């Protein structure tokens, strides 16, 4: 029976007792002003908005649902409500008793700078380090491949985040692997966040409200991955009026519609996107042939206000990629198909127990599937034979989670909660059926594995002193798999010392554990990559990260400099000579565990306001791996070990109608393994070939990667709304960046052939909203 261990049950009791105790202590002699802040025009919650009482000097910040709570002594108050890009609101009144104050702030592009001496949520003032909030407006302005705005591609432009190979949306954060990123869409983990073999991410920018990237100093509420958290919040839908937006591009189009179901009480947003390469190509295909590729995705969210204390949310995502091909002739029919996709669904219930205690209960389902197969029917010699091969893998999660925000005083913001997740892994299964001889063949790969994961956490964002704040927490996770418990207690600490209003020092330590692995080829990142659980043989990944940094603001610029050291244990890689194409073996036999470490320095200079905005990021880093069974036990550079990584993003408003955006990226070439010599084997080896000598794993460097993209946007107000034309040029100076190096030497060309994919690509898209 899957009963959580004693300590897990105790942590639940502890959390409840903690809450009751604090409720008693802080409920007396203070009053609490609480409520929701939202956008006046759309009703969208404002996340991270400031509430500040000038009289008492106390402040609060809204949470992920726009809720704030400020507990102060009974007195007259002079409250300022502020949010970047919105008009400040001021409320003065005599506060003798607790009061609910819901406000709607108006966006005003003329008033982008906060003039009140209130606590700000800029880089120096944030307690949380290694965290970058990406405004959606910035994301939408960054030039994109085929004009398709991509959240993950923008995240790749931040310091500490390495992109994978050319054009792909893989993320490698501070030396971590692509599986070590907790990518949350409205709190639900996504297992494969890419379309079109990674060239596009699954996030439709029109449906997104906010994106946060956390690279270190993880708050205790996050768990399950050891390298980063990418927290994507969907829009809730306009509760005032109907609103639509869409875009028509070269390869895809998208449309979203939002509006009230009942004004100010409930709203919805639905968005969809589809590529049409397959439709465009269809008229040009030969009659008996077919080939194509497309992806589509849809997002939907409904929310309902059930009185003043309760809100209910339903949200979902459904996305599929499908590639297909086939031929038909008198002698044979051949069909090949490949598809993968995510299905996410969540039900969420917000409840206010009182002015200081906010709760969120959610039930999530996440289903990721990959399937490739072919069907062959041949009619040679008058006999008909059929063969059908299917390879499939996938992972399903069912998650029940209960989070609490408890704000007993302005000095403490306590979050606690618990979660249980049921994982069902199908780590790669072949199914081969056929006539006659083949009928006996039915090859099954690895068995399905189930696991249960129980988590409890508590964290306190504690303002110890006016200048000194800390976020201290612990995350306890207990994973049950194959009759085996893997417990882990993960301490998390972040501290911030404010030297003055514009300058702070920060430090953090975080331990993160991960109870699943991604088996990925060192040559490619494909959807064939397998999600696999920890087992009795394959242990959980464990990450420890220490970071130290400083942040300061000067004028309109914010500067951040951070150094980090990260150690990761039990990371998994394929053994030498192994690949995912393992017909009848167990995946556990194909992998080996080892350790990894990385360290680096990251510089970020941001300009968030004014006609010209953007950022400059620079990362110096080193990332290494060591496995007893790989590279003869010697440490070797990680594939994405990138000594230098530079990204520059500039958005400039040329006038009311025109804006220009540009990006430039430079990165040290990826580390790869290429034969550098060839040897003859021993005479008694019984092997007639030659031995390729690699000079060590990943000893060779690809050429440096660099690229510049530009986009020009013309926006015009129409009677029905707003339209914009976006002309973008990807890879402006036609740099031939390497996508893949053929590991087999080409005697014809006299070298190794490196394939480059994207030359200069102009594109145009038409966007509209009403």
């Amino acid at each position, binding site marked *: 029976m899957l009963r959580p261990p004693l300590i897990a049950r105790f942590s639940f009791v502890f959390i409840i007792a903690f809450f009751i105790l604090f409720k008693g202590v802080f409920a007396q002699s203070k009053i609490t002003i609480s409520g929701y802040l939202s956008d006046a025009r759309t009703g969208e919650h404002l996340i991270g908005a400031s509430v500040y009482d000038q009289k008492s000097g106390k402040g609060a910040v809204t949470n992920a649902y726009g809720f704030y709570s400020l507990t102060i002594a009974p007195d007259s108050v002079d409250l300022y409500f502020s949010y970047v890009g919105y008009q400040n609101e001021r409320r003065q009144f005599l506060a003798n008793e607790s009061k609910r104050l819901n406000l709607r702030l108006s966006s005003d592009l003329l008033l982008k700078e906060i003039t009140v001496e209130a606590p700000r949520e800029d880089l120096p003032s944030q307690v949380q380090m290694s965290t970058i909030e990406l405004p959606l407006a910035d994301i939408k302005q960054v030039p994109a491949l085929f004009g398709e705005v991509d959240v993950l591609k923008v995240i790749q432009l931040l310091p500490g985040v390495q992109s994978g190979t050319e054009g792909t949306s893989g993320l490698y954060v501070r030396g971590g692997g692509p599986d070590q990123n907790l990518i949350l869409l409205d709190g639900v983990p996504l297992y494969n966040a890419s379309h079109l073999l990674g060239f596009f991410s699954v996030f439709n920018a029109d449906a997104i409200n906010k994106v946060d990237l956390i690279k270190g100093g993880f708050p205790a509420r996050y768990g399950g991955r050891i390298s980063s958290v990418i927290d994507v919040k969907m829009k809730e839908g306009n509760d005032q009026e109907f609103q639509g937006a869409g875009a028509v591009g070269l390869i895809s189009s998208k449309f979203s519609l939002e509006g009230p179901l009942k004004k100010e009480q409930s709203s919805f947003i639905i968005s969809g996107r589809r590529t049409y390469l397959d439709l465009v190509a269809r008229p040009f295909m030969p009659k008996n042939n077919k080939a194509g590729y497309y992806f589509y995705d849809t997002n939907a969210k409904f929310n309902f206000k059930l009185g003043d204390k309760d809100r209910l949310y339903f949200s979902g995502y459904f996305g599929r990629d499908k590639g297909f091909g086939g031929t038909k002739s008198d002698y044979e029919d051949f069909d090949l198909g490949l598809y993968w996709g995510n299905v996410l669904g969540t039900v969420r219930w917000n409840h206010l127990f009182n002015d200081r205690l906010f709760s969120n209960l959610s039930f999530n389902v996440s289903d990721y599937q990959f399937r490739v197969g072919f069907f062959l029917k041949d009619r040679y010699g008058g006999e008909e034979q059929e063969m059908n091969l299917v390879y499939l893998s996938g992972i399903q999660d069912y998650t029940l989670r209960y989070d609490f925000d408890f704000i007993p005083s302005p000095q403490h913001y306590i979050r606690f909660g618990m979660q249980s997740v049921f994982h069902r892994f199908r780590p790669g299964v072949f199914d081969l059926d056929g006539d006659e001889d083949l009928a006996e063949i039915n090859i099954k790969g690895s068995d399905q594995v189930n696991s249960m994961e129980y988590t409890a956490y508590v964290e306190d964002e504690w303002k110890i002193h006016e200048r000194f704040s800390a976020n201290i927490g612990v995350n306890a996770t207990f994973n049950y798999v194959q009759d085996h418990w893997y417990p882990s207690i993960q301490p998390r600490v972040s501290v911030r010392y404010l030297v003055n209003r514009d300058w702070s020092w920060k430090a953090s330590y975080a331990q993160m554990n991960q109870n699943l692995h991604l088996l990925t080829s060192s040559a490619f990142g494909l959807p064939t990559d397998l999600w696999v659980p920890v087992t009795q043989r394959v242990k959980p990944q464990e990450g420890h990260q220490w970071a130290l940094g400083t942040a300061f603001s000067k004028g309109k610029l914010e500067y951040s400099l951070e150094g980090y050291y990260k150690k990761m244990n039990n990371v998994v890689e394929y053994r*030498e*000579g192994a690949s995912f194409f393992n017909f009848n073996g167990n995946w556990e036999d194909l992998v080996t565990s080892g350790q990894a470490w990385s360290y680096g320095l990251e510089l970020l200079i941001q300009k968030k306001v004014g006609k010209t905005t953007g950022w400059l990021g620079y990362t110096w880093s080193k990332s290494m791996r060591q496995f007893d069974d790989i590279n*003869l036990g010697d440490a070797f550079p990680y594939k994405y070990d990138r000594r230098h990584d530079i990204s520059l993003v500039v958005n400039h408003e040329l006038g009311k109608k025109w804006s220009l955006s540009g990006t430039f990226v430079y990165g040290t070439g990826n580390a790869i393994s290429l034969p550098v010599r060839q*040897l003859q084997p021993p005479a008694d080896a019984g092997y007639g070939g030659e031995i390729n000598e690699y000079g060590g794993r990943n000893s060779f460097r690809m050429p440096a990667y660099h690229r510049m993209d530009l986009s020009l946007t013309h926006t015009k107000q129409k009677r029905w709304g707003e339209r914009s034309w976006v002309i973008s040029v990807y890879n402006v100076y036609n740099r031939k960046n390497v996508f893949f190096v053929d590991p087999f030497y080409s005697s014809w060309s006299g*070298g190794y052939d490196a394939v480059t994919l994207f030359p200069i690509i102009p594109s145009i898209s038409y966007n509209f909203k009403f």
Partner: protein
Amino acid sequence: MKKILFFILGAVMMVACESVIHIDISSMEPLLVVNGVLSDRDPFVINVSGSKRPQENDYPDLKNPQVRIFHEGKALPMGDRCHSDGYYNDYSFLGLEESLLKEGERYEAEVSAEGFKPLRIPFELPERNLEVLRAWVEEFPETNERSLFVKMQLPQTSAYFEIILHNLSSDEKLDWEIPFCSRRKYTTKAAYWQAGFEFGVDDYRDHATVFSREMWEEDIVTLEIKQLISGAHFKEETHLALRTTTEAHYRYDLSFRNYSFSKDNILAEPVNVYSNIPGGAGILTGSVIDIYEIENLPEAPEYPEEPDYWGPDYWE
């Protein structure tokens, strides 16, 4: 409409305009490659060659290659040097004398050739710490299988070993051929050439898999080596040789097996074949051999005579 579609398709197809660039690896210098697993019972062979760059067709022709083996500062007597100038273009250095190398002793090989940095390669012969308690054959006609069982006493410490079948008696003086290099015959007590592969010990090389003590928790183990009766190659004189070898040999064998199995798979992870040659490549290590009689040996089926050896016959 079709023109518009064609234009759009053309624009999109630009994506597929992959181009190929070349990556230069010309700066990699060639290495001396040394291969030899030497033993205390046999004449031994050390093969020496040079590596080549992937873009080169032929292996380099070594000029004046030399191999000398030192024990406690004294050079051991060496035999002939012969040259195979076929595709492999290597040199074989023969240690002709029986029991030239001793169990538990340390040696150093000095390998040189003009244009290459001389190599000094320390190696040792391990001490015997393994024992075959019993080796016997059983037949299972219902499945057309025949198994060789080897019951072994394993040591508490680490150990590495090969189990090799050979068709020659350890008590007789026998002729031994050095294939590929020479048809000259030498006399020895125990030849184990061409053995394990016939029994399909996990792969198809001329020698067997190298096992590690760490593969078993028990101190006494019984290994079963299966073959089909119809394909059996047991002969009346078949004996079992237990070769106690080194960790270096084990690591080389493991990595080489991985390499040879996956070399043509573009999706497979690259394999670095182990080497214990400082400044060079290959494997040079020692081993000690014990011969055991196999019990219960069934009668060998009749086989057609093998044709005469027809390989290259190059003499230096």
